């Protein structure tokens, strides 16, 4: 099934597209990722690309940037057929990419990362002039308005800052490649806050004289805001090509998912009052240099959203509750019992599940199959007489794959080969399967398509209805407010505001922002 193909106005002039795919096909074992896809990007154009998780967006981008080669079909650069044998080949032809998953090398410095593979311009007689390189790197950082020392190691940077560095890295193309550029942005905004998003958008617009962009995002409003034209993908095929000015979110959503957006996106009618039972209680909880004197109660069935900017201490607080960094002051009580969580294992043992932001590092064992990942948090109950009941494991895994609509060739597929959104569903399945009593959700819908988000929201509602308590930190305030019973705002390590968010009495975003900065 597919939506109507809506044709935009025909191209205005005879200039060939800057970059085009013509009848491109790509298969992976068990997956037909791209089916006869044709798209074109005209000079100076910003093209949005939307589609469900696994629709093939990243695959398409990787073909355009030389990471993958198409099985059949052509790539046309400025009207003439070309081939990209590798990423560096594509780069030398003026095509740069910001990858969906972070691709900075954490053991190198920021400057080294920015010019990785492009040191030649600073090299004389084989010797790299690091001063010149770092000076140039500083200029690149200034473009994205990051004032970090380029000699900082990438691992010492925060998540969002790293994303901006990646952007800076892609923007070096401006100086490094002659002629017209095409810059591919695969979900660059998913970890960014509005301020950085504005910087990014401004940069994109400023460059449009020299460059075309493809912009992938699951935040449809952003796509509408930035793009000139939008392609919609579904199941590996392009199903629509729209002029952004004429399109709206509802329409995009319908094209992607094949049904209309729920009026009640966050399922607010399903929000039930939480119970009286306190499952988690923080009493003056502190961690030096991160947060201090945090106190709140979390009840069974409650969703507690924590809002705050980076550096507000909410990251560290969630890490403490997940067992990564024990608190050093105050008290933490779980089901009335005082505890100190020294390792994630201790947290898991008392029923805490954690969905981390760095999905590919801490969320999933990429090189294990889907089934093994789903059961990893709760192998104990699958074990009979010391042996894992593999039949039961298989059944459970299949059940979760169905319930969460995880798109995978099978439960024995390595998680590595799943699309980002489907990977996130596997992580969620893991904790649902482990019947965690408290779920710590750190950006749980990051990278999920709108449809998948709905499903996740519904799932979160369902588990809270059964008494699971949730602590939520999220990409957007909207999501935080929409889902939560209670919202806490943190700033500089302390709670600055707390507000109830019962259906019908949801707080306004602006009110919260005032307490955040």
């Amino acid at each position, binding site marked *: 099934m597919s939506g109507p193909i809506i044709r935009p106005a025909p191209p205005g002039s005879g200039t060939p597209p800057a970059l085009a795919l013509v009848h491109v096909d790509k298969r992976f*074992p068990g997956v037909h990722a791209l089916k006869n896809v044709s798209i074109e990007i005209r000079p100076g154009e910003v093209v949005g690309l939307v589609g469900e998780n696994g629709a093939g967006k990243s695959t398409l981008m990787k073909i355009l940037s030389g990471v993958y080669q198409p099985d059949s079909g052509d790539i046309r650069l400025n009207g003439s057929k070309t081939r990209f044998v590798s990423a560096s080949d594509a780069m030398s032809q003026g095509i740069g990419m910001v990858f969906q998953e972070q691709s900075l090398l954490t053991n190198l410095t920021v400057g080294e990362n920015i010019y990785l593979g492009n040191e030649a311009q600073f090299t004389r007689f084989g010797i790299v002039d690091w001063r010149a390189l770092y000076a140039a790197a500083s200029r690149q950082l200034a473009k994205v308005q990051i004032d970090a020392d380029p000699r900082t190691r990438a691992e010492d940077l925060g998540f969002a800052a790293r994303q901006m560095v990646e952007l800076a890295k892609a923007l070096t193309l401006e100086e490094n490649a002659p002629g017209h550029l095409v810059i591919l942005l695969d979900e660059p905004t998913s970890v960014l806050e509005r301020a950085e998003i504005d910087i990014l958008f401004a940069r994109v617009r400023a460059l449009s004289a020299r460059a075309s962009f493809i912009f992938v995002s699951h935040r449809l409003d952003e796509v509408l805001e930035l793009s000139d034209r939008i392609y919609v993908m579904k199941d590996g095929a392009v199903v629509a090509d729209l002029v952004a000015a004429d399109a709206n979110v509802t329409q995009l959503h319908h094209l992607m998912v094949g049904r209309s957006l729920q009026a009640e996106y966050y399922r607010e009618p399903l929000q039930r009052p939480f119970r009286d039972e306190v499952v988690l209680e923080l009493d003056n909880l502190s961690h030096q240099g991160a947060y201090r004197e945090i106190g709140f109660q979390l009840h069974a069935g409650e969703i507690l959203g924590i809002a705050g900017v980076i550096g507000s201490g909410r990251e560290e607080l969630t890490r403490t509750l*997940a*067992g*990564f960094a024990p608190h050093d002051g105050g008290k933490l009580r779980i089901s009335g019992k005082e505890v100190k969580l020294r*390792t*994630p*294992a201790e*947290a*898991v*043992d008392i029923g805490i599940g*954690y969905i*981390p932001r760095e999905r590919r*590092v*801490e*969320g*999933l*064992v*990429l*090189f*294990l199959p889907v089934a*093994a990942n789903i059961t*990893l*948090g709760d*192998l*104990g109950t699958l*074990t009979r007489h*010391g*042996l*894992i009941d*593999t039949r039961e494991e298989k059944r459970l895994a299949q059940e979760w794959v169905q319930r969460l609509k995880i798109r995978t060739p099978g439960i*024995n597929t*390595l998680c*590595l080969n799943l699309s980002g959104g489907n990977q996130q569903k596997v992580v969620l399945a*893991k904790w649902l399967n482990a019947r965690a009593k408290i779920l710590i959700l750190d950006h749980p819908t990051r990278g999920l398509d709108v449809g998948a988000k709905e499903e996740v929201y519904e799932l979160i509602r369902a588990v809270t209805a059964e008494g699971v308590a949730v602590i939520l930190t999220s990409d957007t305030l909207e999501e935080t407010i929409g889902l939560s019973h209670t919202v806490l705002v943190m700033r500089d390590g302390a709670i600055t505001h707390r507000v109830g968010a019962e259906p019908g009495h949801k707080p306004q975003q602006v009110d919260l922002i005032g307490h955040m900065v």
Partner: protein
Amino acid sequence: MNSILDTFRSDGLRQWLPLATLVILVVLVGAFQPAFLVVNTLLQLASDTAVLFILATGVTFVIMLGGIDLSIQSMASLSSVVVALTLSRFGYGAFAFAFGLGALAGLLSGIAHVKLRIPSFIATLAMGGVLYSAALVTSKERSITLGESERAYLGWITGTVFGIPNVVLIGLIVLVIAHILQSRTRFGRYSAAIGAGEPAAYASGVKVDRQKVIAFVLSGACAALAGIVLVGRLASGSPTLASELLLPSIAAVVVGGTAITGGVGSIWRTLVGALIISVVRIGMTFLGVNIFAQNIVFGVVLVAAVAITIDRSKIPIVK
């Protein structure tokens, strides 16, 4: 052994490549030297592989987790010395004693590795040194020959059942236990998870340290068992009895197609790897390969074997 078949089916043809490599090698040698394909010769080959396989099995547990155990050869030698010294006093208890000692040594290396956060390469290299010294001191630097009465205790190693040498059966028992441990227990699953992605395993609540220590304990115990089997085969103990078995053991693991970086692998692959090593070695003797060329041929064939056996779809980055 239902799950062995499962393993085969799930990944299709590729899973069979190691075994196919082995079979081809055997047939190749047999084609030139029919005496090689005689049942007795093959049984002999299996017996001669037992010690290598047991050592390699132990180290497979550690390699799966992404570590390495370099102390196995010293442990096996020490175990042989301990058995030889205590057999007359403890009888069968001597075997249990040595076995326990192996587990203990593994426990110590494991603890040194996880608690002091010393790379396993160093921790076990050092432990190997300590064990070697211990073997030298306790044996007074000599090999200890077992007397007639002590040799009576070795029947369970040296005998045969229905014509099958007991060492082969011991190897099979180790295979079955190790296979179950690895494919059907939490320990096995956690090992694979840790080897394939330690931070994610850690965040999922896996007690990483504990699994690592268990792997070293198993490795030490297997090494001790290998030493015990050596005592049976040589009717003696000596501080250098298992010399030069370390690298072949690790090579057996890798030749089977287990990733030296961890996460991907299995015990049956190690079995196939150990057999490939034996077949190549003994095959060269059978074929009368020039003695000066043997090392070269050995090196080349091992590399070629790995080229076939490793599963690159699971090890996309070959380091």
